[in-house]
């Protein structure tokens, strides 16, 4: 009697309108350059007039998402605001009140939902995360040092003579050799395809996701178009982003693999089981026994897979990182509408690599920054973090967390389905530690002008 509806919004046959890419910020749709350099910069606005002046100056330099699929931009900046930032710009109260609850509260206040306890608790975060001093954030991406300096200089000139605009945080970042993350895995391999955003989608077997999931002003997977925040001029072509910085303990990762495995080959297999891909990027589903660097390097194949032929998890464990954060078709028999739980990944890595083979921590800060873009953070980032990353019930794994980015405190387990009996790794250390995070609103270009032109 329980007739599961196959896909959300299937009754809505209306085609989505094409996205107005000239009004959407480049950061929303444009993949980061490869290789990339960049910097996240955060300001505090101490004076509303100076805040609006900075906005007016920065406006001409905020890149639109036109032709985002062509890797033609040498460097660009994106701009986003926290709730405290919108307050500092004196956005009208009725408008402030119409923003979603998670944005108004800020990420620190959501710690219980996000399972940010222990070392990950907001009390242990870096300044200015979790404080009221974080107002405006810039994300600057560039192909090389020269272009990075050029964009940084543009940014500097928008506020250098405005004494009440204070720079409260800078995080320079850059890609590591071969596009690897600090743990040594090729990353940035998957992003949902946004319907109507480009003439031709990237290779892969995934159906496009409705644009309203990622940009306000278009129908989403529920068939709805965002009605808040108000007014329409402010929300149209805008979206929300989750910024979350975490440290990666690469030495702990390597030590743990060494302790659990009896050969270098087994270390690599265990690492791949935790991630769901080999270091080259080759997915376990397509290469279950050995790494396949040619597959990993082939953008037309390394993301073209599902879990329908691996419903016992014998190739890719249920608990593997990529199967948790993007289950694809793995949950098709459950009452879960996976299309409601996506985000665009624009994150980056930071810090120097820990040299190959080193097992002792060198004390350096290195890790990743999640820059996750979606119009509904509550059912996107927050759902994925609370239900799929820091819990295991959805895959019948009790309280088991994501082996790589879970918020464990050294007592983690990781289950590897296997015949005749499964293997379970115990005492999994926390390989990552949250250093801070915040929810931001990333308006469209006309909305930026609206913000700059507000009068008291």
């Amino acid at each position, binding site marked *: *009697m*329980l*007739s*599961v*509806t196959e896909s*959300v919004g299937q009754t809505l046959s209306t085609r989505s309108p094409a996205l107005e890419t000239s009004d959407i910020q480049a950061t929303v749709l444009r993949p980061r350059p490869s290789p990339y350099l960049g910097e996240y910069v955060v300001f505090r606005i101490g004076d509303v007039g100076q805040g609006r002046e900075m906005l007016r100056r920065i406006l001409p330099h905020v890149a639109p998402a036109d032709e985002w699929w062509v890797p033609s931009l040498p460097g660009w900046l994106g701009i986003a605001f926290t709730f405290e930032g919108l307050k500092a710009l004196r956005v009208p109260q009725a408008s402030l009140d119409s923003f979603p609850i998670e944005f108004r509260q800020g990420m620190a206040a959501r710690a*219980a*939902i996000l399972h940010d306890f222990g070392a990950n608790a907001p009390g242990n975060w870096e300044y200015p995360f979790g404080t009221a001093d974080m107002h405006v954030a810039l994300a600057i991406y560039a192909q090389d040092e020269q272009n990075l300096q050029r964009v940084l200089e543009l940014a500097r000139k928008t506020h250098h003579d405005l004494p009440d605009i204070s720079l409260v945080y800078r995080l320079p970042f850059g890609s590591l050799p071969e596009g690897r993350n600090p743990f040594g895995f090729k990353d940035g391999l998957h992003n949902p395809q946004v319907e109507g955003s480009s003439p031709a989608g990237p290779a892969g077997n995934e159906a496009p996701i409705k644009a309203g999931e990622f940009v306000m002003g278009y129908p989403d*997977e*529920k*068939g*709805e178009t965002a009605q808040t925040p108000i007014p329409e001029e402010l929300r149209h072509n805008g979206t929300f982003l989750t910024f979350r910085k975490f440290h990666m303990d690469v030495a702990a990762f390597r030590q743990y693999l060494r302790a659990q495995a009896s050969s270098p080959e087994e270390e690599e297999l265990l690492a791949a089981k935790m991630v769901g891909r080999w270091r080259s990027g080759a997915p376990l589903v397509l290469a279950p026994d050995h790494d396949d660097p040619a597959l990993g390097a082939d953008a037309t194949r390394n993301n073209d897979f599902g879990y329908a032929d691996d419903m016992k998890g014998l190739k890719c464990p249920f608990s593997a990182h990529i199967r948790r954060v993007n289950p694809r078709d793995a949950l098709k*028999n*459950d*009452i*879960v*509408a996976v299309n*409601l739980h996506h985000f665009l990944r624009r994150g980056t890595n930071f810090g120097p690599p820990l040299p190959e083979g080193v097992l002792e921590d060198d004390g350096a800060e290195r890790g990743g920054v999640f820059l996750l873009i979606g119009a509904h953070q509550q*059912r996107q980032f927050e*759902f994925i973090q*609370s*239900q799929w990353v820091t*819990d295991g*019930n*959805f895959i*019948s794994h*009790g309280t088991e967390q994501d082996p790589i980015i879970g918020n464990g405190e050294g007592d983690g387990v990781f289950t590897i389905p296997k015949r005749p009996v499964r293997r379970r790794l115990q005492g999994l250390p926390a390989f990552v530690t949250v250093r801070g995070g915040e929810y931001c609103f990333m308006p469209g270009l006309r909305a930026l002008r609206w913000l700059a032109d507000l009068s008291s």
Partner: protein
Amino acid sequence: MATQTLTRPKQNQTAEDKIQQLRQAFADAPEFAKTALENTLRDLASAAAQPRSRMESAGRTGSRQGTVSELTLIAPFARGGAARLRAVLQARNGNYDDTDKVGTVHDMRFVFLDNDTKLLFATAFDGDWDAYIDDFVAKIPNELDVFFSACEGWPGTHNPAVRDWIANHQVTAEGWYVAHPDLTVRDITRVKRVGKAVEEFLDKIG
């Protein structure tokens, strides 16, 4: 997601204070109830001295113990709603196996109150319904509408006001006991499977 303890005792309130309050509350109770209270005071005192800190808030309303949450909902029937819902429930012949698909529901009951004028719906489930409500709306909208359209003011599953409707009709339990607050429905299924395998193994070697 649980953040606050609903049963947190007042600061500095001792078990003796609480027993004193209990005796006062029972001052106008019948004699046999007073006697019963005195006879159970020893157990009550130890319970009062060791509050169960694991009873917490489950999202906006309702309470939660460990991984299990309770939802109790009381809503007036719409015109003809009681007859419709009764017909739907009777057609099932007591079979609710399809609810297995949800994977997080421990139990569910539909009780008709006050001469078929109100519905009491009570359920225990894992986690927070808030997190999954959009998934339910997307995947099982017909089931929700068939059940709850019996109630007055049900906005329809696809209406965003559905969250508020549920929250507005929810009543938080004052007291609630869960035998295994650390086991989800999926945990129980797994533990049963493992237990069966172990028994079979023991049968073979025994």
